[in-house]
């Protein structure tokens, strides 16, 4: 019975939304008197569009949207604490879907599969398949509505590459070559030597995603559902083999062409370094694209190109732990013999609903998240730099008008969107680790070992051993079967 009510309410919400657009607001709106507290991090990114569109939504439906923000680094804990202690002061959350499993397993998040299926205005199928099927889903059910598309790409300086007669890197070996060619050249005309490659390698920041952007191409070649972190049968880590060693070697070697204090650079530094023209190459999410056209921060407007994460011609043979050359069986998705594995690090900000909220509030919360994600709103928001939203809908690649209006040249926009589209449509996208307590695997074990490796405290072999041992210990502590099942669920593998 309750379920039906909810369904009807959701449908009603959609209907009202559909009809309310453009019509003058009728008295006695559907969600009059409902307040939805939405928790996210202090913007302006992500919070800004929510705050801006909240009043619009209130006008349409009567529901008041109250956006509460906390510092980014504490968002994960804050959401979890609110639900674990049953404080439940928030009815909706906008967070990184990588954290989803920790909220879904205990049953804190509302399953919105039925609402989504009954929501025509959302145009679910317009959202890129990766975000629909992997990012928003867990074990076949939908828990979040994507508001943002996040994955990493390589940025390069079009002018510098043209001058040096180089092509954008296709493989990680190319990346090193390009970096070597640009290193110690003056890239921004200030008379000082600049850097070939800038990567955020600071400990406890983004380094553990960066290293996986490199490793993905070596570890995963047979599609998203193969996964790149563990063996699918035993949950043995894929971090102690020739392929991972090669990826680590590349990652360490990029440091030769980086700034001297690269070990202390986070993405704030690498982004600012790139847009002020001090770096030839960088790995980043979609942010550099929009920062580069902001006159307040950029010196490289329309000199920036983006390309899908470089790949590898050799990939891991999971049976032997060795590196094998790419062919049609080992790398079915390879292009030109190169296996690309774009890494959906972090996963793109998404909205979810607190299961413990009253039904009417949940309906309003859902309606709001849906409203934010609908084409009419979303396709505008992704072109505005301050929103922090990057494209995630197929329709967002049609028409460059909005981008050109935002200040990109047509060719730069085409190049930028091309890289995003190539990544987005890749069937071999690497899903970020989503097993319960994934932060302990990545943020503690992986990140610490990589930091020690980069600081030359340990060798590549020692680092691999430390990561593998640490992950095994964590798995054993948390229960191998449960972790294995969760790992498969995130990849949509059913057995």
């Amino acid at each position, binding site marked *: 019975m309750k379920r039906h009510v909810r369904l009807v309410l959701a449908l009603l919400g959609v209907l009202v939304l559909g009809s309310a657009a453009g019509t003058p607001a009728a008295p006695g709106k559907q969600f009059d008197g409902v307040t939805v507290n939405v928790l996210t991090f202090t913007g302006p990114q992500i919070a800004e569009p929510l705050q801006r569109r909240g009043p619009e939504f209130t006008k349409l439906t009567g529901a008041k949207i109250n956006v509460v923000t906390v510092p980014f680094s504490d968002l994960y804990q804050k959401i979890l604490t609110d639900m674990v202690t049953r404080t439940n002061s928030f009815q909706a959350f906008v967070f990184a879907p990588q954290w989803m499993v920790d909220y879904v397993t205990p049953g804190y998040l509302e399953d919105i599969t039925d609402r989504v299926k009954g929501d025509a205005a959302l145009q679910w199928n317009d959202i890129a398949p990766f975000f629909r099927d992997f990012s928003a889903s867990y074990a076949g059910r939908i828990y979040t509505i994507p508001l943002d598309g996040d994955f990493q790409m390589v940025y390069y300086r079009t002018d510098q590459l043209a001058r040096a007669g180089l092509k954008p890197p296709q493989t990680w070996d190319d990346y090193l070559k390009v970096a070597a060619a640009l290193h110690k050249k003056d890239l921004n005309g200030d008379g000082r030597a600049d850097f070939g490659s800038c990567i955020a390698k600071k400990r406890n920041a983004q380094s553990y995603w960066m290293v996986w952007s490199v490793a993905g191409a070596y570890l995963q070649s047979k599609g998203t559902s193969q996964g790149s972190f563990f063996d699918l049968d035993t949950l043995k880590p894929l971090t102690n083999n020739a392929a991972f060693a090669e990826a680590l070697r590349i990652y360490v070697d990029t440091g030769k062409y980086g700034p001297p204090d690269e070990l202390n650079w986070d993405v704030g530094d690498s982004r600012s370094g790139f847009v002020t023209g001090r770096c030839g190459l960088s790995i980043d999410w979609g942010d550099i694209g929009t920062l580069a056209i902001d006159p307040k921060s950029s010196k490289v407007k329309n000199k920036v190109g983006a390309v899908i994460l470089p790949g590898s011609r050799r990939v891991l043979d999971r049976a032997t732990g060795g590196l094998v050359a790419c062919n049609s069986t080992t790398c079915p998705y390879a292009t030109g013999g190169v296996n690309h594995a774009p890494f959906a690090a972090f996963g793109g900000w998404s909205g979810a609903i607190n299961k413990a909220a009253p039904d009417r509030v949940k309906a309003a919360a859902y309606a709001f998240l849906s409203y934010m994600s609908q084409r009419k709103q979303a396709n505008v928001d992704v072109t505005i730099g301050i929103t922090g939203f990057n494209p995630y809908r197929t329709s967002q690649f049609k028409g460059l008008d909005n981008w050109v209006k935002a200040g990109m040249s047509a060719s730069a926009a085409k190049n930028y969107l091309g890289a995003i589209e190539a990544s987005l449509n890749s069937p071999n996208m690497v899903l970020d680790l989503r097993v319960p307590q994934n932060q*302990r695997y990545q943020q503690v074990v992986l990140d610490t070992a990589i930091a020690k490796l980069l600081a030359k405290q340990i060798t590549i072999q020692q680092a691999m051993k430390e990561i593998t041992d640490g992950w095994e210990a964590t798995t054993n502590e948390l229960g191998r079967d449960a972790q294995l099942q969760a790992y498969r669920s995130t990849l949509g593998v059913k057995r």
Partner: protein
Amino acid sequence: MLTERDLGGTGSPNGPVPLSLPQALTRWAGRQAGSLFLLPAVLLLMLMSIFPLLLSVYLSLVRFQLVPGGFKLIFVGLANYRKLVAGIEREHFLGLLADLTPLIWGMGGAVTAVLLVFVIRGAARMRPAVPRTAGRLVFAVIAGALTWLAIRTLAPGGRPGTVITTILYVFVGIAVQYWLGLILAYLAAQQIPGRRFFRVVYLLPMMITPVGIAYTFRIMADLGKGPFAPLWRAVGLAEVSWAGHAWGARIVVMIGDIWQWTPFMFIVLLAALEAQPQELLEAAMMDGAGRWQTFWKVTWPQILPVTSTVILIRMIEAFKIIDLPNVLTNGGPGTATESLTLHAFIAWRTLDIGGSAAVAYSLLFLVTFMALSYISLVHRRLAGAV
């Protein structure tokens, strides 16, 4: 509630007691004075500390796990502690031990010998002998272990873990802050024009929120974007960065810490200097003592109690250092600048609540040991009493 009888207080100042007060109410209030002075503070502290203290002990013995329907706290005994001293966290927590060389043997042996003498002399002199000697023995064992750990991890080939790194921050930080604070307070207490300006200016660093200071130092210490970048390039060090070197990074963290906390020493010591009776100084001057002599003979003993307290308070606070390493380096390069609180914080942020509580409790143990040793070996002598 606790009554006067429980407290057993005499309810009167140590001085002579007024015996002939007429009003009964006043007398009652007078008798209760001891309780009324102390109880509100004690009650508030108990309220805010007992439960958190107990719960976090419990948390350090469990494993937090999210399961369908909520979360589970699985009792694991001392596993979280074992992980720190013998398991996968050992190198992180205690550090990597250098190979034993004759030099290490020599230094470690010397320390051991000193501690042995300390215990034996204690046994010979102290009365009652057994409990006091036992106390000294416990002190000697723990202090000896920590010293050995410090020597072996700081020697070439070793790598200090978060324990030694934290102790290093505390010792170096306090030593520099104290002497700097004392010199500045002494000079600022002189009758010179413009001293009010200096006094206010010196307090400024303490007024900024630690997170803000950490970010300020991050931009100041940035060799590409910070103010010292041109200078650094001019001396030909553009290719070198403190951020890549363990000691470079530690020193930058300590500089930030000194900048931030010298004002604390300064303000407390300044107030102590101002509060000393002027007559004594004047008398000493009359006797023809120089400034230097007056300071050490008259002023120094006067401010010793406050000195000792301020060092104790600062020590307890300094062990909790987190914002500077967290923002400046996030504990890097490698784990070189990671403090114990940061260690606990990183574990806590990733939901390893048991592991985090275990680190926090180890820190509690360490600080309690240091504070108790400090109080019984130093503070009692300097301050007359606790």
